[in-house]
């Protein structure tokens, strides 16, 4: 059984390697398709054993959460959890250090995996059920407080020069206003998607995908295509300029941010990244980048791991929700299977990070960056169309319009998360339906 499970996790991780490099494709979309395949096989009388599909799925999530750093940094096409890595990552790329930046986030991911396996996993069955029991009635206000934090902590970028007065004030508030507008419009879109879901129910697991792709990935691709940036010669370094102290600090910052996002509902990896940056007042770019790597892995992998924690009965993150339809973990054996799979997948994906980054850089050397971005954009559009059809493309286009606001005005891209945060927070506080009714959605 161990041999079969190991093969399954290796297969999942290797598949994730290739999927991670495709910009815009979220691993939950692939998992959704895999589940449909399993149901189809069951319909034919061929039952897949949990010892095969569980490690396979875990390999997919872990491999993807580690390796999707590559398109985020090198192609500037992030998923929501990686949005904070794009700007510093692209700065590394534009100074010929794309490999270094990517590997630094990769090192952070490895720290995140160590934290999950060696720190969180042994204590989770004892302490997390207590935390869940105490905090469950309070999830709604925690979500509202997070929304308040996102909206109130954006820093005005303008208004630094010139005489005092309204002109200076409006210059500063152009970014803040754009941020608030983005959050409001995203929230409105979220209400629309939740109460008048335009994407067919058969497209299970994929209904939010076009919105996320439009809000987060496409604006970057468009910017890359239009800006005409020329990527300078890239240098491969044998060592990273980091030490144990930096790793420890990024581990603490990212671990807390990602852990928070993994444990609380609707709070995503992007919020985890934001909290990771703020909570420890990190100025060092290397710590920031690594903490984002930690946060991303702890969010995706940690949320899936929580699903297997004995006695916790917690389903967080799309991966766990997809698996829940197939299997309910019951024993310590399931937990150990998940932990072992995470360890193997994490180790393998980190080892694959360097060659895959080098390969992508080689490709970028041969092909113009704008063409790669255009190709990435094409893949994203084809994926959205093939999974969700014309309606999905329409949702994606509208979302892109909203996602472009922060890109153009230099405000925080995380405001796009209003698409999830606002409607869900309203629902949790019992005001979702009256608002939807007021908007004419009911």
């Amino acid at each position, binding site marked *: 059984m161990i041999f079969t499970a190991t093969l399954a996790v290796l297969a999942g991780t290797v598949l994730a390697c290739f999927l991670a490099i495709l910009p815009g494709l979220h691993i939950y979309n692939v998992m959704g398709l895999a589940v449909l395949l399993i149901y189809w096989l069951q319909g034919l009388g061929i039952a897949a054993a949990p010892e095969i599909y569980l490690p396979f799925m875990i390999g997919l999530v872990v491999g993807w959460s580690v390796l999707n750093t590559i398109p985020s940094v090198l192609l500037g096409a992030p998923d929501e959890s990686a949005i904070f890595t794009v700007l510093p990552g692209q700065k590394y790329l534009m100074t010929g250090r794309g490999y270094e930046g990517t590997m630094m986030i990769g090192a952070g991911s490895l720290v995140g995996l160590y934290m999950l396996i060696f720190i969180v996993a042994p204590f989770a069955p004892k302490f997390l059920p207590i935390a869940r029991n105490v905090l469950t009635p309070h999830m709604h206000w925690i979500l509202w*407080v997070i929304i308040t934090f996102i909206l*109130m902590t954006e820093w005005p970028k303008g208004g630094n020069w010139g005489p005092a007065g309204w002109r200076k004030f409006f210059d500063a508030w152009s970014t803040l206003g754009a941020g608030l507008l983005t959050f409001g419009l995203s929230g409105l879109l979220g209400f629309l998607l939740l109460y008048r879901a335009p994407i067919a129910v058969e497209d299970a697991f994929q209904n939010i995908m076009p919105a996320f792709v439009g809000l987060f990935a496409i604006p970057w691709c468009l910017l890359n295509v239009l800006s005409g940036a020329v990527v300078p010669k890239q240098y491969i370094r044998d060592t990273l300029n980091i030490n144990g*102290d930096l790793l420890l600090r990024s581990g603490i910052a990212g671990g807390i941010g990602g852990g928070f996002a993994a444990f609380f509902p609707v709070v995503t990896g992007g919020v985890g990244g934001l909290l990771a940056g703020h909570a420890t007042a990190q100025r060092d770019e290397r710590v920031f980048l690594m903490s984002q790597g930690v946060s991303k892995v702890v969010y995706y992998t940690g949320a899936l791991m929580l699903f297997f924690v004995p006695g916790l009965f917690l389903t967080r993150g799309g991966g766990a929700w997809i698996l829940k339809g197939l299997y309910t973990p019951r024993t310590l054996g399931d937990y150990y299977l998940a932990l072992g799979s995470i360890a193997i997948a994490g180790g393998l994906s980190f080892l694959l990070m360097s060659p895959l980054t080098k390969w992508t850089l080689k490709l970028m050397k041969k092909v113009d960056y704008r063409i790669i971005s255009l190709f990435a954009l094409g893949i994203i559009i084809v994926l959205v169309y093939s999974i969700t059809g014309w309606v999905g493309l329409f949702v994606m286009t509208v979302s892109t319009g909203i996602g472009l606001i922060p890109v153009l005005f230099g405000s925080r891209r995380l405001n796009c998360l209003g698409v999830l945060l606002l409607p869900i927070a309203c629902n949790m506080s019992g005001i979702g339906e009256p608002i939807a009714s007021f908007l004419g959605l009911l």
Partner: protein
Amino acid sequence: MKGIAHFISGVTVASFCPWAVEAAQNGNPAYFILGAVAGILPDTIDFKFYRFFYKHDIRIESHPDQLDPQRVADAVSKAVSLAMEGKRTTLKLASIKLGADDWRQYRVKIDPEAGEVRVQFGPIVSTGQVPQPNSLPEPRPVAIAKFDAPILQNYEPTYTIDIFDGPSFAFKRNEAGQVEIDFLPWHRNWSHSLTVGAFLAGIASIWTWQASVVVFGAYVIHVIEDQMGHMGSNLFFPITKKRSKGLKMMHSGDALPNFSAVWLCCLLIFWNVYAGIGNPLYHFTFVRFMMYAMVIPFAIFGAVRWLVMLPDRGHPESLSTEWNV
């Protein structure tokens, strides 16, 4: 302290109010949101509103391609002289933006003993204040401007100007005949006073008296936290006209105090919502909780950090620029 520490402190204050926890259990998040907003509001007022309307008598905005330290030094010296003549003078030294993430750093040192201002331009730094290698300008003279006035420094003698908004100063002659330098005169002034907190609490009391308690508590905790730093706050505006001296226990950007405050607040919130459960499934004492969640993890963190810094002889790597005027 950093914004997140103030923010979560406000939430923590709300969690100490039984009515806030009870309302939250019944689906009403208002008190917690109110606490969070009030907790960060003093800085919001200063940084997002007031500073854009604060007028400066002298503004120095250096051109990125024409770095002239003498102009900066002369402006500071002039502000000191004007103040000595009895005219309160405000001065703004603007930052120098070179690109989306590049800023030219420069330093201003006001040396009371030598009776001079020294200014020198430094490296290009990122928005994270990390210097870029080989970015020092050439040549790099130190400009000196003399003044003839006794100086009373309330902050630090050397000011580094780099990212976002540059610093402001107010120069004013006091009763002892010294020129007092007020760093960032628009910050931690009237907005950081207990009286304004009480005023806002009064407004909140229109809704409920419970809301006013939350607002006042969250506002006050912000002022108290800031009082632990170097700058202090104008505690009883308009009765007091200037900031009380800070306790100088920390700098607002220090990582460890900020992180410790955030973590402690999270634990206190957890404890308060646990205490609000009528018949809890799990039983533990406050001391045991704090031992497991704060004392032991921090001790382990300290030990591990000590171990990983051994190769660097126990000193954390610093990114601060190694130059001085």
